[in-house]
Every structure is written in structure tokens, then in C-alpha cells.
């Protein structure tokens, strides 16, 4: 069953089409990669799917519901979560606070709860505690619970970003270049985290990545973008072997592993 249907998605900036009539259909439970050279519009597509950018044309449907005009928080309510390209974290907060913030949608509070409950009381709700603990262990940050997130090394911050996104228990996870700036060890760690997310939780994942080798190991399917348009889609192996794709990559300065 297609969990996400993107039809003729377009986004213009001034006269320039950053994304031009891209259509993708994502099946529930799969990991799909979005690859392409620099500036191909991959991050823009993610921005359009999660609502950070407004759509210029086309439609997006999630589980049958048309969400094209929904603001980001409404899409989050439906189960879409996003990990941003740069380390987006709540900078004044500790690791635990970050995860608790991410779990906003899963904390129990009525409409007046935000005023009625103190932060402490919410934080101590048993299922919030359990979820936070589980996520911390999942990404391996349980020893750093009360540290300020800004004092973590880059790789750990990325893992925290993933944990924050998972805190809302999403059905669809959008990962924007999760492996940037990571060494080999951190890359492997992140890849296994992503695999685990997909296998143990059944979360559908869309990964935007430069590192094509990682995509080969991770994704069942890949979509290649170039200049804002869909070049082809297929298994990662097919995509990498395709002459048009190779030309698109070689024509620009990006790394083909």
C-alpha cells in the first residue's frame, strides 16, 4: 500500500524551478533513497514533503489524505518526522529535554494541559520516561542524558537528532543527508540505526544521501534526481549502472563512492 503519493510536485523560486514535476510513490515499510548530484533538489523535495516549504504545483498524499497545504506541525501529527541536514536541536536543552520535546505529540495532555501541567509533571509521565529511556539506549546516548546537547560531538548530535525525530513514533521518517560529516565508524553506526528503525519499528524511511555506497547498502529502491527532475527510479544497483545517472554525477563535482 502506498503510504506516500507525490504527484507532479513542483517548486519555483522566482523563475527557477528547483523541483519540476516529480512523482514518486512510496510503499509502506520500505527504505527508499533519494539521490542525485549537488543542487538536484533532493533537500527541496524533503522540505516540500514535510511542509517546511510551500508547494508551487502538484499534490502530496499521505495515507490517502491530501496534505499538500498542511503546515509542518499538522503533518507531524499524521506521523511524518524529519531529520534536518544541519544539526537541528533545541540548543538550550539537555539530551533528555530534547527527546522530551520531540515526544510532544505522544505526551498526554488535554487541550488545557499545556497550562495545567508543569514541565516536570509531563516529563515524569511513565510512558514518556519509558520512551525516552528506550530511545536513548537505541542511539547509545543513555550515558549522556543530562548533558547539554551542544556539548556532544557531531556524530552524537546527529544520533540525537534521529532520536528526537523518533520520539513522536512516526510512520514516515525523512532523513536529510544523515551521514554528512561522519567518519567511517559513525557512518556504520548510523546505517545500522536506520536499518533497525525500519526493521524493528516498521517505519518507512526516505533517505536523501550523497554517499551512494551507503545507499546501495541501505535502500531497496532509489529515485535519482537531476536539476529538479526525476531521472529514473529502480533498485540502487540499476540506478548506479544507468549511463544517464553516471553522466549526471560525473558532470558535477560530487562523490560517487
Amino acid at each position, binding site marked *: 500500500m502506498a503510504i506516500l503519493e507525490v504527484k507532479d510536485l513542483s517548486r519555483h523560486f522566482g523563475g527557477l524551478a528547483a523541483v519540476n514535476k516529480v512523482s514518486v510513490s512510496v510503499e509502506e515499510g520500505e527504505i527508499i533513497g533519494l539521490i542525485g548530484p549537488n543542487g538536484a533538489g533532493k533537500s527541496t523535495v524533503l522540505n516540500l514533503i514535510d*511542509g517546511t516549504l510551500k508547494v508551487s504545483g502538484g499534490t502530496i498524499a499521505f495515507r490517502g489524505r491530501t496534505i499538500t497545504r498542511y503546515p509542518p*506541525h499538522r503533518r507531524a501529527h499524521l506521523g511524518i518526522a524529519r531529520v534536518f541536514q544541519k544539526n*537541528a536541536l533545541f540548543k538550550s536543552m539537555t539530551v533528555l529535554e530534547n527527546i522530551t520535546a*520531540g515526544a510532544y505529540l505522544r505526551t498526554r495532555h488535554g487541550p488545557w494541559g499545556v*497550562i*495545567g501541567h508543569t514541565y516536570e509533571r509531563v516529563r515524569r509521565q511513565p510512558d514518556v520516561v519509558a520512551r525516552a529511556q528506550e530511545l536513548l539506549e537505541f542511539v547509545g546516548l543513555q550515558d549522556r542524558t543530562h548533558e547539554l546537547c551542544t556539548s556532544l560531538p557531531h556524530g552524537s548530535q546527529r544520533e540525537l537528532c534521529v532520536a528526537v525525530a523518533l520520539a*513522536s513514533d512516526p510512520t514516515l521518517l525523512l532523513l536529510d543527508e544523515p551521514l554528512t560529516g561522519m567518519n567511517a565508524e559513525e557512518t556504520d553506526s548510523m546505517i545500522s540505526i536506520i536499518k533497525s528503525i525500519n526493521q524493528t519499528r516498521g517505519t518507512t524511511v526516505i533517505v536523501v544521501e550523497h554517499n551512494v555506497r551507503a545507499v546501495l547498502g541501505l535502500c531497496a529502491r532509489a529515485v535519482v534526481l537531476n536539476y529538479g527532475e526525476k531521472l529514473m527510479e529502480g533498485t540502487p544497483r540499476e540506478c548506479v549502472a544507468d549511463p544517464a545517472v553516471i553522466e549526471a554525477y560525473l558532470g558535477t563535482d560530487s562523490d560517487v563512492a
Partner: protein
Amino acid sequence: MSKRGAAKSLLWVAIFFVVIFMPKMLGGNQYWVTVLALLAINVLLVSSLRSVTLINEISLGQVGFVVIGAYVHATLMMKAHLHFWPSLIISALVAALIGLILAYPFLKVRGIYFSILTLLTAETFRLVAYYWTKVTGGSLGLTGVPGPGKESIPFVGVVDFNKPGNYYYIAIVIIAVALLILYYLERAYIGFQWRAIKDDNTLAGAVGINVIGYKTVNFVIAAFMAGLSGAVFASFQHNLSPDSTSRFGVTMSIYLLVYMVVGGKDYFTGPLLGTAVLTLLSEETRRLEQYQPMIIGGIAIIVMIFMPMGLVGLPRQFTGWRRARKMRTLERTAPPTAGATGMAAGDSPGEA
């Protein structure tokens, strides 16, 4: 309770007693009671300004809501003959409503432009008050705004609350309640959402927080508090004047900002301390009236550059300095280690 906690509670009890008995201590000196009452009103106003900084915006337009609160309260009491307390609440609610209407377009605009907009809007409200002579008395001002009148208090007898000395207590009670509400909200779950929005409002949206919604609530609450302070002011002062040097003008917005920064915008008690210190300073320098704006302006700049955390944040600034100095001396005495991050003071020289 920890030693620090006990010390803090003791401080609050002391403040409580000082506040209650201040008028008696001053020997019924009308002038100082007036100063203190106005100080309390200003504290609420500055706190409303600080409340907006919780969502990382600076509203230079709180005085606009003061205008609304003051004039609506005056009109309701004088023309509609409402009693003091309902009129007070309704005026604050009207200010909050206007805040709600303005919030939607304003909160779409970021940073500095939001501040400019709030400034311009407050000026508009003041000008409306200035020119709408029929309703507000125009440039001549509005006189004769009544106070709460006489009330009979058990054990004390009949108290005339129109007198500044007694109105002082009403003002203190109202403002204390309002401040408690603001304090509580900051610690409530909604305060946590505001913090998330302040830290990274895109991420906040991505985790499902309705950013514009929560920002609106914050702005509306701030408008309510500012309007409330205006209404309390109106019944205290009995005269309202909308000219540019009054409490409704841009100059007042400037002073509010300075009070907040000097006290410390990151702390709830910042507005209290900043307003108190600068008000007392202004009183002491009455003789130098010409130089007063210069002094206040100078203080503002000095605080902003050298004590950005304000007076309340001074202890933390000191510990920060001491820590930085300690690190520097450690760096000088410790030998260079190959790639290690730790700096143990006990390292002996010559270790690789």
C-alpha cells in the same frame, strides 16, 4: 530544603514584609507611595515585555496595549458606570483581544521587523488616543478616572481606596497575582513549548508543535498583562495624557526595554530588579533632571556591552569569568599533551 533554597525563601519573605509595610515605613509620605505604586505597575509592564522574549521576539509595542487598557477602563468606569474590578478585567481582555487580532500578521514576520511593527502599532494607538477627542479627551487628556472607591474591610473598617496610600495595596495585590501567573506559565508545559520554539522554531514545527499558535498565546498573554497594567494605572493616576512624553509614548517603550535589560532578561526577577534599581536611581538624581536620560542611556549601553545578563545574572557572569580564568592558568601551567582533552593540574612536566 537546601541552603540556597532556604536563603531564597527568606529573601522573598523579607521582600513581602518590606512591600506590605513600606508605606508605613515611609511615614505615610505620599510622594514615595506614588513612586512605589508606579514602580509596581512598571514591573508588571516590563514583565510582559520579558514574557515575549520567551519566544525570542522583542515587542516594542507593549505601551500600545497599555493605552488600550487605560482608556477602555476609564471609559467603562466613567461612561458605562461599571465597577472597578469588572472594568479592570474587561479592559485587560480587550487589550488581549486586540493582541489576538494583531498576532496573526505580526508573528509571520521575523526578528527586527516584528519589533518595528510593534513599535509602529503602539504609536498608532497613542495617536488614536491623541486625536479621538470625543472618546479620549484628546490632547487635553482624560481627567477624573475614578478608583475603586470606598470598601469596607473586615477588622479594618471602611477604607477609601481612592487615596494613593491605600490604592497602593490594591495595585500590589493585582500585580503580585499577575506576576505569579506569568511565573507559573513559564514553568508550565507551555513554557517548555515556548523554549523549544525559541531554540529552533523549524524543528519545533517538525515535532508537531503549532508554532504560530503558541506564539500567539504568548503574545496575547503579554497584551493582557500590559492592558491590565494600563487599567490599574488609570485608576491610580486619575488622569490620562496621550502626548508623546507620557507613559504611552516611544520613550516609555525605550525605558521599559532598558529596565528589562539592566535587570536581566533571562531571569524572571530581572524586570523587578531592573525597574526597582533604575526607578530609585531616577529618584535620587531628580536634581540632575536634564542629565537623567543620559545617565539611563549610558547605563543601558554599558550593561548591554559588559553585563549582558543583567544584574540578576551578575553572579553567573562572575562564575563564568572565574572558570575561564582558571582554564587559562591551567593551560599555561600544564604541559602540552598529544591530543588529550583533559588538563589535570597534577601533570608533571616532561610527560609526553
